[in-house]
């Protein structure tokens, strides 16, 4: 079966490193790590667990008028989407001329966990419907489709930490099967004290900035943001005469079917996902120019992922861990990391990884320690998630 090539014609990003793709890349190439104590919410804990918070303004950034009160997740998604649409040379009014679908990953953005509302409910103070209306209006993909007047498929994916990767992967399938002409895909998530406390209590959060693959790593820092790609068939992009930044050459996802929170110790799902994604992209491990690893800097994730990478790829394959600059943005992570991987391919510049100091002999992965020019066409991005989900995207650069 011959499938159309899936082109990326626009990218958008917002995270702690900046409010647009150029800002984010400049910050990453400069090696800036913006982890700090959370300011967007208050917690009563004895220790500080840093987060990667978005500091660029959200209010005035969007061009669209909303008839509902947006959540921070919605604002982040909108800002990244508008940047991606501008890059793809798509104006709002032209979107109606195409079948445009939207597929977004999230975790916080789909959860009815308004603490204020719930406290009032518990105390029988009979809260009104504002909070519920706000929740109903802010399902990320749905509200984006409504705001932009899109006519294609609309899906919000909640696959925990692989949500954004799976959203891009499903959108790739939409283009391949002609479900839509154009897909807006990626992920968005805001920082919230609810998962913040959960990760701390799971002993997965660190009091230091993350140290991916380091022998002394001790956990993740949460972050927030959005990463969006605009996808269309290469043929459609050529007809529209828009440049193709890259192709989504491969995608695959496999479950460990093992444990609700821990990865399979042998990484069976991740191995299969990498192998299947490479087959889908018709590339061999030796052809992969660099890997943007999931690399949460937790003991289990990095051990399992690192060993799988070590066993699958040639030893000199560079491994980048961009969460060391963005934090773990949960449902946004896969979308954001897709954008960073694509842009690094476009720039032909390898990012260095922050935080790594000492090789862990158990995994023997030494992530990139300096940024450098590269000459490669293919990169992959991994996502591992609660429940044992493992998803992999393969990107291929379009040579100009």
């Amino acid at each position, binding site marked *: 079966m011959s499938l159309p090539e899936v082109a990326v014609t626009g990218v958008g990003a917002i995270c702690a490193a900046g409010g647009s793709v150029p800002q984010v890349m400049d910050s990453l190439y400069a090696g800036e790590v913006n982890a700090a104590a959370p300011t967007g919410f208050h917690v009563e804990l004895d220790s500080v667990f840093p987060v990667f918070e978005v500091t660029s303004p959200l209010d005035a950034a969007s061009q669209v008028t909303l008839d509902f009160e947006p959540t921070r997740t919605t604002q982040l998604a909108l800002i990244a989407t508008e940047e991606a649409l501008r890059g793809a040379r798509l104006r709002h009014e032209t979107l109606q001329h195409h079948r445009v679908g939207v597929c977004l990953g999230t*975790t916080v953005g789909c959860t*009815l966990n308004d603490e204020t509302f719930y406290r009032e409910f518990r105390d029988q103070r009979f809260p009104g419907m504002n909070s519920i209306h706000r929740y109903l209006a802010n399902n990320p993909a749905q509200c984006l489709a409504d705001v932009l007047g899109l006519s294609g498929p609309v899906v919000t994916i909640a*696959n925990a930490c692989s949500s954004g990767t799976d959203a891009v992967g499903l959108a790739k399938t939409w283009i391949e099967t002609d479900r839509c002409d154009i897909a807006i895909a990626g992920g968005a998530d805001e920082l919230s004290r*609810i998962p913040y406390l959960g990760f701390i209590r799971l002993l997965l959060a660190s009091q230091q900035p993350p140290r991916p693959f380091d022998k002394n790593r001790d956990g993740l820092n949460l972050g927030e943001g959005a990463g969006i790609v605009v996808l269309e068939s290469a043929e459609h992009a050529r007809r529209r005469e828009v440049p193709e930044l890259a192709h989504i050459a491969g995608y695959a996802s*496999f479950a460990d079917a*093992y444990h609700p929170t821990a990865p399979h110790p042998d990484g069976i799902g991740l191995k299969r996902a990498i192998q299947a994604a490479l087959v889908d992209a018709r590339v061999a491990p030796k052809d992969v120019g660099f890997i943007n690893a999931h690399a949460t800097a937790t003991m289990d994730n990095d051990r399992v992922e690192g060993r799988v990478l070590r066993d699958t790829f040639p030893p000199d394959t560079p491994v980048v861990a961009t969460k060391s600059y963005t934090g773990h943005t949960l449902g946004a992570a896969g979308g954001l990391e897709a954008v960073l991987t694509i842009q690094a391919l476009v720039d032909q510049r390898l990012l260095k990884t922050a935080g790594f100091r000492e090789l862990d002999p158990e995994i023997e992965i030494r992530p990139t320690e300096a940024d450098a020019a590269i000459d490669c066409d293919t990169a992959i991005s991994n996502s591992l*998630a609660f429940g044992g989900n493992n998803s992999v995207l393969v990107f291929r650069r379009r040579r100009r």
Partner: protein
Amino acid sequence: MSASILGIGSVSALGSGVDSLREALHGSVRPRIERTSISTSSGKVELPVYRAHVEGFDRFVNRRAQRRLDKVTRMTLLAAFLALEDSSVDIADKRRVGVLVGTGFGPLTTTFDYLDTIIDGGDNSASPTLFASSVHSALASAVSIFTKFNGPCLTITNLELVSTEVLSTACAWLDRQIVDYVLVGLADESCPVLEYAARLRGAGRSDRIEPLRLDACSYLPAEGAVALLLGRPTEQEKYASLLDVQSIPLSSGIDSDLARNHRALLLAANGEQKTGRSFGQLDLGSVKVAVHSPLYGSLPVGLGFDVALAALALERGELSPCAIGTAPKRLDVLTEAMPLCNDDRLGCLECAASRAGFVSIGRM
């Protein structure tokens, strides 16, 4: 894109198993509707709720393992196991089975239980176990872990058209040969917060769902799960096949196109006014329509139940009506059993504010 329905499982206020749906369709089983008491600013009120009973779970999951599973996960798992059992399919390669779960609200009870640990005990007391179980993907993960199916495992969490998008994705996985089978689960639960919110939105002023009454809310909260084992169209269909799944903008005005070639449409109207208005505006021509939400209640995954009911109606060769009260005159509502022949197709239609989801069901 199409898929063969190989097995059906369900858990709802009608009971557990495909026979509970068969019997409800034939009128021999009624839903168990509990009256729950809700405190509002104007005093206590009663709200009828379609409460699901998770019966027969012990056959599939031992009691020790059940302890950590919340109700919506149990419902999803039980429906999934029942669909597998119903199918009798011998699955040789578990890597070639995808798990795909759709839910509107996710594990609500666990989400609020987790918040309780923070509110009651302070920030240092947040329960890590409840937090991990409160993520929406916990349902699909549980299905994957307990069945050992380790193909792709995906959770779609739309508040609108969730069943349509899940079934469409399942068909795409099969069409792209990503998997050989997809175990689809569609599940939602009710909880006190949702019931309070439903009441504020007007639920419970009527004791029964009148799904096509457009001037008043007759929404009654429900919970349940329906699971389908889907295979490629080349597989021997046990019931029928999903011949087409699509989501369409309501503004595209293709209502009569949808209705064409279908003997009858099952509308997933559920007494909610906003979507009720969308159903009320449809121009479906002379095609007969039936609504079965009074059997399974008002919940985001209602279309999933309709798909199962449509497959069972085709199996029996007859579509039974369901009493729905008032309906717009422009809709030709089924009032007596309609015989179906082998070539007949049934359509299942769900509406959101601006989009509709449509599933065509028939034999290959």
